[in-house]
């Protein structure tokens, strides 16, 4: 054990052990929260800073927080649409101190409360980094049916990209760019203090590209708020896992008072939005394709032209109107000693393809309680059961969309397969299911043995059992493809995944001198994760036993994967607060992890930050134009651990045949059953270490009607894990992870929001926020011989690269330098195009700019209409669908190939792919603006609500993905055939995101 770690442990024990026995008095903080004109505010949240003590105000705006340690305390009141306020009070032993708050309306909060890694709630004014905060109460849930939808466009610096229109498909979430070439760039997800499984790609068998994301297991209806720690500067205390940022989810809880019953129901429609191009085949008299190039060379004359569009033709189109129904309810309430929140919901969604549906049942229960006057406890549990059917699509040969766009219109194909590339029965026969049950539960406690000390602890587990299954029936056209498919098969993946989290911390708050408060926190964390997967395959299904492996008679195969991982951590955090306006923080976390190489010990992550609410200083001028200003700065480090076995020098067990016997064998590591070549272990592996500093401010202007927020960040990932392609002649692994690279992400985040109109009846708010980001691979490292590691080539048809000096994952192809119709025949022939000699950078599939504009208009409490526009710019997308259709060596069925009026640039692109193998002409500008959300909520008159025995009724009409403005010529500029893949991006027969229209009815009792 390192000296540093020993020191942390000793500090922890020194702080905690002797003091736990010391008793101290308790008191009560009570008061009222009011808003404009002194009107009481119901539902405002009041928290005691540095503790988990909190309360929500009742109908008369009053609150009461009991069991508060006697002595000085900081209390914050906040509510959506109002500027939070914080007060310092002294809690009398056995008595009550009053803290009333008069909140001013403000569309943006300069301070709020966020949950920190220590388990405590802190006022954002104390934090030196930018923390994104989202309250679901302010979001039209009807327009955001998934957690990914909920996040999209809501927090600056967080880019959420919907991969497709597949029901159950996920979204790619990136915060402040991609840090890692080799490890997942998805953020860490924490729910109520517990780490949960957060894979962005979560499907065993392949369906061509789309797969679920575990983020979408969260039910937006049960989420109270989301805090986004955007990078190491904010997330350092999460250590080895937090370099990509942290999404902290807080679920809803009950409040003391009468029981609150709520029910809701949603009904929606999904419309497919693609405009699939015609398939064209122009043939000469001999039946050979007669492209415009051949026409221009006088080598053929078009005798017959065939056109079809099996995806658009009503007689052959597979598309249907999708639908969505959901219903749910909750009850919450409690007393001072205990509160509860219980909810349940059910939803079903039928996608626009018949093979695509989802049913989901969720239950959530949260409780809080007080035991004695020093111990607060809480527990929460959620249960989810899910059944999903996913269609073949994208890069799947028998996906109905690829079969449609790559089909032929000639009479023979029409007769044989309706114009699809293959018999569409293939698509309908192939079934892929994902069924699982997931349970997440946690208990937590907060003990206040003395006024200045609180002890926090929580423990929780996230566990789910999942079954992913591919199967085709016994009698199927697939039987024409050899023995494996004859009489069907079942390929079954069963998963048992569990994450265990335990946290313990102690926080001491001291008044060092008048105006100077010291807060010291020490803690430890142990996290253990395990994925256990068994894949079983069998073919030759017996009649009558076609949905169970019990019916398999041949081609048996079985494999097992275990990926256990554990992280042990200790941390210490110190804060000094000067007159509640200047805050200085420093922290250090140290981790040990299973995946570190055997030669690596503890890894430490430091952080420092400062926050200065300069407008609270006496010298700050009191201006109507500038009401408040907070300056902040932060620096921190966080990490990403290697894969569970990347450091291991190990061998794989296999079966081979020798002298007619099946015998065991071992060889250098492989992936899968000998199909892929594996990674050679590296005993010196360390985590990737990302360090980040940021500077920023928030201010409220013009009588709090306009808010401005700006953050500059500079993030550097060192020791980046490079999956170095080994020279294949070494004859072992294909790659080896090495800590070699460096990746920079620099950028600016901004938000301007304000109230444009506020009258007694109307209020109109608007917000414009976004970010610019510059992602760059600064260093790819050196090989053992001192030579630079060569560019890493990957992606669809090897079109993407990690190249030093350029953004990660950029598109690289031989460029089209020039083209000209030299002979004036209106057509570009291969000799009339000049190609560059080597691949050059053509652009980035990830946006360099993102911006959202949201606005909402309220009319009294009767109605609210809101809209959100989402812009992403500076990105390109490989239109492989078009390239494959237009390549004369592949499908040659695109209209442009045969039409003499095809623009010359398109002709040049076709010639480049057909004759020079370059996709350069099909890497397209994919900037877009989407009308992402529109929602109208009408609160029905109280008289009507009472008539149906409710306290309130509201009706919401919502739409999502309503319109796209773009120059991209493919299906949609946002899609990715490879789902949420780390970098691989392209448009390859991918279903565009659907347009959703939905009605929601909410009632409370």
């Amino acid at each position, binding site marked *: *054990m390192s000296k540093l*770690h020993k020191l942390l*442990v000793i500090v922890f024990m020194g702080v905690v052990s002797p003091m736990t026995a010391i008793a101290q008095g308790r008191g009560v903080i009570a008061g009222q929260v009011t808003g404009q004109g002194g009107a009481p505010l119901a539902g405002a949240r009041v928290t005691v800073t540095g503790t988990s003590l909190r309360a929500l105000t009742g109908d008369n705006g009053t609150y009461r927080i009991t069991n508060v340690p006697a002595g000085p305390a900081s209390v914050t009141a906040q509510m959506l649409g109002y500027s939070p306020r914080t007060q310092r009070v002294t809690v009398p032993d056995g008595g009550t101190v009053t803290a009333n708050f008069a909140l001013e309306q403000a569309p943006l909060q300069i301070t709020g409360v966020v949950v920190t890694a220590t388990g405590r709630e802190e006022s954002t004014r104390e934090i030196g980094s930018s923390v994104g905060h989202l309250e679901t109460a302010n979001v039209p849930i009807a327009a955001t049916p998934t957690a990914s939808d909920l996040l999209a466009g809501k927090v600056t610096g967080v880019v959420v990209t919907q991969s497709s229109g597949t029901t159950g498909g996920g979204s790619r979430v990136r915060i402040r760019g991609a840090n890692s070439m080799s490890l997942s760039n998805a953020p860490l997800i924490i729910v109520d203090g517990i780490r949960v499984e957060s894979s962005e790609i979560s499907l065993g068998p392949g369906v061509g590209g789309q797969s679920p994301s575990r983020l979408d297991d969260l039910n937006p209806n049960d989420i109270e708020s989301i805090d986004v720690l955007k990078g190491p500067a904010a997330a350092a205390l999460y250590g080895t896992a937090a370099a990509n940022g942290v999404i902290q989810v807080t679920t809803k809880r009950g409040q003391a008072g009468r029981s609150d019953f709520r029910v809701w129901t949603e009904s929606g429609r999904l419309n497919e939005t693609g405009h699939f191009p015609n398939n064209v085949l122009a043939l000469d008299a001999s039946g050979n394709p007669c492209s415009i190039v051949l026409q221009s060379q006088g080598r053929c004359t078009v005798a017959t032209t065939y056109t079809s569009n099996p995806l658009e033709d009503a007689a052959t189109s597979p598309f249907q109107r999708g639908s969505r129904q959901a219903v749910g309810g909750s009850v919450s309430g409690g007393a001072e000693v205990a509160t509860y929140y219980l909810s349940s919901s059910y939803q079903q969604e039928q996608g626009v393809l018949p093979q695509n549906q989802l049913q989901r049942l969720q239950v959530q229960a949260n409780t809080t309680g007080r035991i004695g006057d020093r111990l607060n406890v809480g527990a929460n549990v959620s249960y989810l059961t899910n059944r999903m059917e996913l269609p073949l699509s994208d890069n799947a*040969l*028998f996906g109905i969309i690829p079969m449609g766009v790559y089909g032929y219109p000639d009479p023979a194909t029409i007769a044989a397969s309706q114009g699809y590339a*293959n018999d569409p029965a293939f698509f309908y026969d192939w079934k892929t299911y994902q069924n699982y049950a997931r349970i997440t539960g946690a208990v937590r406690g907060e003990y206040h043995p003395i006024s200045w000390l609180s002890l926090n602890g929580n423990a929780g587990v996230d566990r789910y059992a999942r079954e992913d299954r591919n199967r085709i029936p016994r009698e199927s056209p697939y039987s*024409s*493809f*050899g*023995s*494996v498919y004859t009489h069907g098969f079942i390929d079954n993946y069963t998963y048992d995944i569990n994450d265990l989290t335990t946290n313990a911390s102690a926080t001491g708050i001291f008044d060092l001198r008048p105006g100077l408060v010291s807060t010291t926190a020490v803690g*430890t964390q142990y996290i*253990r994760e395990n994925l256990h997967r068994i894949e079983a395959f069998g073919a030759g299904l017996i009649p009558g036993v076609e949905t169970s492996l019990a019916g398999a008679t041949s081609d*048996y195969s079985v494999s097992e*994967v*275990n*990926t256990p991982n*554990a992280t*042990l951590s200790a941390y210490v955090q110190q804060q000094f607060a000067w007159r509640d306006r200047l805050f200085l923080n420093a922290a250090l976390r140290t981790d*040990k992890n*299973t995946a570190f190489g055997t030669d690596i010990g503890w890894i430490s992550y430091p952080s420092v930050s400062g926050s200065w609410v300069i407008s609270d200083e006496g010298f700050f001028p009191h201006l109507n134009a500038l009401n408040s200003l907070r300056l902040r700065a932060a620096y921190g480090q966080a990490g990403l651990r290697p894969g569970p*076995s990347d450091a*291991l*020098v*190990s*061998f794989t*067990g*296999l*079966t*081979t*045949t*020798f002298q*007619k016997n*099946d015998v*065991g*064998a*071992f*060889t250098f590591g492989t992936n*899968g*059953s*000998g199909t892929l*070549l594996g990674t*050679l272990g590296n005993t010196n592996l360390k985590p990737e270490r990302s360090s980040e500093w940021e500077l920023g401010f928030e201010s409220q202007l013009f009588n709090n009607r306009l808010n401005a927020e700006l953050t500059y960040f500079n993030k550097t990932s060192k020791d980046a894990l490079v999956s*170095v392609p*080994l*020279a*294949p*002649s*070494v*004859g*072992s692994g294909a790659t080896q992870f090495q800590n070699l690279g460096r990746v920079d992400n620099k950028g600016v985040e901004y938000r301007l929001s304000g109230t444009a109109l506020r009258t007694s009846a109307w209020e109109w708010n608007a917000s414009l926020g976004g970010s610019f980001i510059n992602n760059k691979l600064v260093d790819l490292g050196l*090989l053992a011989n001192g030579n630079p590691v*060569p560019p890493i*080539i990957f992606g669809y*048809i*090897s079109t993407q690269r990690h190249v030093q000096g350029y953004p990660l994952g950029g598109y690289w192809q031989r460029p089209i330098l020039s083209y000209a119709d030299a002979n004036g025949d209106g057509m570009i022939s291969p000799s009339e195009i000049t190609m560059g000699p080597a691949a050059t950078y053509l652009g980035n599939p990830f946006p360099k700019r993102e911006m959202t504009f949201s606005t909402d208009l309220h009319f009294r409490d009767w109605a609210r209409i809101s809209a959100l526009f989402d812009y992403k710019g500076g990105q390109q997308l490989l239109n492989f669908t078009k390239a494959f259709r237009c390549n*004369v*060596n*592949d499908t040659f069925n695109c209209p442009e190939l045969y039409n003499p009026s095809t623009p010359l640039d398109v002709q040049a692109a076709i010639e480049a792919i057909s004759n020079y*193998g370059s996709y350069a002409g099909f890497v397209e500008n994919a900037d877009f603006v989407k009308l992402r959300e529109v929602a109208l909520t009408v609160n029905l008159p109280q008289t009507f609500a009472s008539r149906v025995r409710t306290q309130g009724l509201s009706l919401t009409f919502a739409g999502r993905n309503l319109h796209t403005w773009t120059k991209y010529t493919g299906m949609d500029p946002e899609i990715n055939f490879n789902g949420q893949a780390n970098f691989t991006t392209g448009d390859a027969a991918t279903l565009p995101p659907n347009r959703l229209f939905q009605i929601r009815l909410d009632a409370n009792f």
Partner: protein
Amino acid sequence: MAAAACSSDKLVNITTPDVIPLPIATDPANIDVLKNGVTFEFARALTGPASNNSTPGIVGLSAVMTDEMWYSSTFTTMRDIDRRVIDVANTDLLHGYQYLHRARNLAEQAIAQYPLTPKNNSSDHAMVTNLAGFTYLFFAENFCSGVPFSTTSLNSAITYGPPLTTAQTLDSAIARFNAALLRATAANSLTQKNLAHLGLARALLDKDNFAAAAAEAAKVTDGFEFDIEYSANSSGQQNGVWWNNQSEGRSSAASLEGGNGLDFFSRGPSGTNTTDPRTPADSIGSGLGQAALPLYAALKYPSGDAPVPLGTTTEARLIQAENDLALGTSNTYLTTLNTLRAGIGLTPLVDPVTADGRVRQFFRERAFWLWMTAHRLGDLRRMIRDYGYTQAQVFPSGKTIRGGAYGTDVNLPIPFQEQNNPQFANGSCIDRNP
């Protein structure tokens, strides 16, 4: 808590039960399991893994690049190999190259491990040495000149090797076959002795030393055949050529491919295709995802457990016959060819009289006898190198079955990933000569 901190290693050092730790792999007591690993790697290198869209191994690569097979599915990388326009970034090229190097390296590691065991100089020791020799042979026959040969020891220490010319690569093969011969002799294994003699003969033939090759071939006894085995037990053990061809439909047996392709069978409807018992075929529809491309089954491998002959007496006699051919100046080779044909009931061949006729007749016979056993690409290269033909005269040329044009590659280049080898200074083939 303090106790937990002090035992932190216990909390984070978790064993993964799925993998074999180093001490087990290097234990001399487990030499048989290591030897089995060599046969696994070699079998995979020969035909490729039997799984979705897998690279078909050196047999399939040789077949697709020549007139034995055409590619019948959608992936552009295999299509480019079929039309002989092969980029160094071609991923199927990479996989075939990797498979072969893995088989070679593990065989070399097993060879080094045997002296630590009681099975030193056993027939198994001779076998893995022979298999190592064949990997060098396959590199020489199918890849360009300049392939580097590195090693990874069982404890993962990498030693980078420099590129070798084709002649040096063949010398490496010869060294392995000679070593195998000594071990086979010590073990009194006739099978491994035959395999070593055949390997030597094939390598010497590739070095254009016809007489020495014939002399070694003559030492191969009658009735010899050494197969690389496959099994239907699991998909990882199945014959990858069969899988690609008949299970997935991604590669089709070819006949009359391009301008020079041999008429291995008749391209008619099912049941009418086989015209020669050495190249049985049957029409089985169209290629995977390519309704317009005909698909023919190579019934030499009718099932997933069909073995691939690595060495046979027939091949040895063909090597002897080629020495008799004397570059087309003699017709004495016909005696051997007709003896072999008579053995399966085929009518005797007549002397075409011209040197061109004799050479083409001889190589046609080789092509039929050695169909889909990773000989054809090496043979077409030798027809150019030794007999003076151009690539356009022996390889499929003109219009591909898809309608595009063939390129001019006559061998497989070295994948660009080899540039990570510090000994691979020039970063590409020494030459692309036949």
